């Protein structure tokens, strides 16, 4: 495989890690949605590039799903949810931007160390792609943990899922990638519909058991 192809693939995958960092420090709802749309756009470019260099036309379907659904439809839908729930002015306290960013850097370093060591045998393209993908996944998890609001948790989850799609398309010749990306889209569509229909408000999306126990009869 020629050098440029690999370089472009790495540039796009690295771009996703960068955009994941941008997601981490967004403290306004609309800013968050726009950056997420950018995240999905970079993903679809990256998948399309993989489709091109691997000569795997079915991956264009995955790229198209990423572009249409995640870069356009879902951000627009969430935009409306945010306006309707009246949380567009919310400025979230993320628990300190500085520490979160530092922690995020630590996670990226961790995933580089783990993946590059574990995949020493794999080809260089897949190898570094996987390391980037794991960084995106971990940064998505970090975002879900540090945010308190349902909409930003969804964004965190979707960025995590973008990382998975990146990993799946980087694994050359992996079957079922399109099917898996569709299954994931269904999942996400359900989440978005859930928020939209049931007006799930802030608060109870916390992973903190205590908050939930207090909510319902478990307290004395």
């Amino acid at each position, binding site marked *: 495989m020629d050098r440029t192809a690999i370089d472009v693939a790495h540039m796009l995958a690295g771009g996703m890690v960068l955009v994941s960092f941008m997601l981490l420090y967004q403290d306004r709802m609309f800013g968050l949605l726009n950056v997420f749309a950018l995240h999905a756009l970079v993903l679809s470019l990256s998948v399309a590039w993989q489709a091109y260099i691997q000569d795997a036309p079915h991956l264009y379907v995955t790229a198209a799903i990423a572009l249409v659904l995640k870069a356009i439809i879902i951000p627009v839908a969430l935009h409306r949810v945010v306006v309707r729930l009246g949380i567009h002015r919310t400025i979230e306290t993320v628990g300190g931007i500085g520490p979160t960013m530092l922690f995020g850097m630590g996670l990226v370093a961790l995933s580089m160390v783990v993946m590059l060591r574990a995949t020493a045998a794999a080809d260089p393209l897949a190898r570094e792609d996987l390391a980037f993908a794991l960084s995106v996944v971990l940064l998505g998890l970090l975002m879900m943990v540090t945010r308190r609001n349902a909409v930003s948790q969804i964004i965190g989850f979707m960025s995590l899922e973008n990382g998975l799609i990146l990993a799946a398309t980087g694994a050359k010749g992996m079957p079922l990638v399109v099917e898996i990306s569709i299954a994931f889209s269904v999942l996400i569509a359900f989440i978005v519909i859930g928020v939209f229909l049931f007006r799930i408000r802030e608060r109870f*999306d916390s992973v903190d058991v205590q908050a939930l126990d207090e909510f319902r009869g478990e307290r004395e």
Partner: protein
Amino acid sequence: MITLLVHLPFEPTTAVLVIPGVSALVLAFLPGYRLTARLNVLATFLTFLCALSLLIEWPAPGTYLFVDDLNVVFIVLGTFVGFTTSAFSASYIAHEIEIGRLTPAYLRFYHAMYQALMFAMNLGLLANNIGLMWVAIELATLTTVLMVGIYRTPESLEAAWKYFILGSVGIALALFGTILVYMAARPVIGEGHDAMVWTSLIDKASAFSPEMLNVAFVFLMLGYGTKVGLAPLHAWLPDAHAEGPTPISAVLSGLLLNVALYAVLRFKMLLAANQAAIAPGPLMVTLGLLSLIFAGFMLYRRRDIKRMFAYSSIEHMGLITFAFGMGGPLANFAGLLHMTMHSLTKSAIFFAVGHISQAKGTQKLSEIRGLTESHPLLGWGLVLGVVAIAGLPPLGIFMSEFLIVSSTFAREPLLALPLVFGILVALGALMLRLGDMAFGKPTGSTAPVEASYLPLFAHLALVLAAGIYLPGPLVTWFQNVARLLG
């Protein structure tokens, strides 16, 4: 007609998937709860029969589906509990319609989702492809999320949301692990489908890169472990059990947790087939013990009856994971037996609890008193169930727990201490609560409730029978599976 049947290619593996799949579609459009509830029972019964026929003979592994000694245990157990739960669900739902907690439209949805869940679980168990298995488990998660939130109260939506988020994270981690397994298999098996097919993966696992497999297993263990309800990742489980309809609690504990565990076991076998990879046992043993002890203590703090039994499920899944983590023929045998007994007992308990909370109009432990006096059959059913789940002789769980403990003592005496401690802590909590619930002066409504006792006592009878005498063929069968698990 008969000639038509002869020409129809009757294939139990496909039938186990087609029956629930078609019923889900049909039930989504049929009105009237009496009819649909009966159809639901009929469909699960037919699925169970097809699953039974798999015991006699199963087809050779295909590209997408396969049956072997291991998954046939899960399928037969799963379809059986699915069938009895649908029978319980029929009478439970009748009451919910009466008091107006469910409307007919939601009921159609409920039945369709029930069958969709059966489909997804059977697909997950039968899948011969790690990607397909992942999709099936994701589908199973989705259907249960929708059913947990079906009452549309703030609490149930909240529980569904939490389950959704944690379940999705688990599912996402499992997918990353799945991709890594494919990456490890690709250089050996070659690109494309074969590198995701179980039967070829397990054959060639010894040549995979061990580092990749190690990293993959950590992700798979955490991902599917979330769905098993293992301790640091269990937070969704009590809420999902407490806020949804009780039949769903029974299916969650009796079936879905097992399906996730099945996925973990499959990948454990894959790692065991590779000499250079880490031993998956210690990770499973640690998570299992942690869940057991944590849940044992949490049992004391419960004030909601369904939540309490949800924590008891975490405790038992911990115990089962521990047993499989120990490995070896005896511990695996004990783990399998314990899994079977736990599924039967826990769903029986939820059958009783469902009717009890309907009779008393509450799930609060403090408002449920003197059941053996006010509702003798239900009360004694619950007593028997709790005695069984706490692991007292002569019931089945006593035997499987005894086997787990004694095999641990024989091999790792130090691990046996926390194990016994955890079991005793849980026993104490359950007995304490049982005394309050079952005996004393009855509180609340003493009006009789229309209940279906057959599923409840059928399960308990099986558990009792297994505790007294295990038939020879069953023992040999389980021993075979235990050897297969390594």
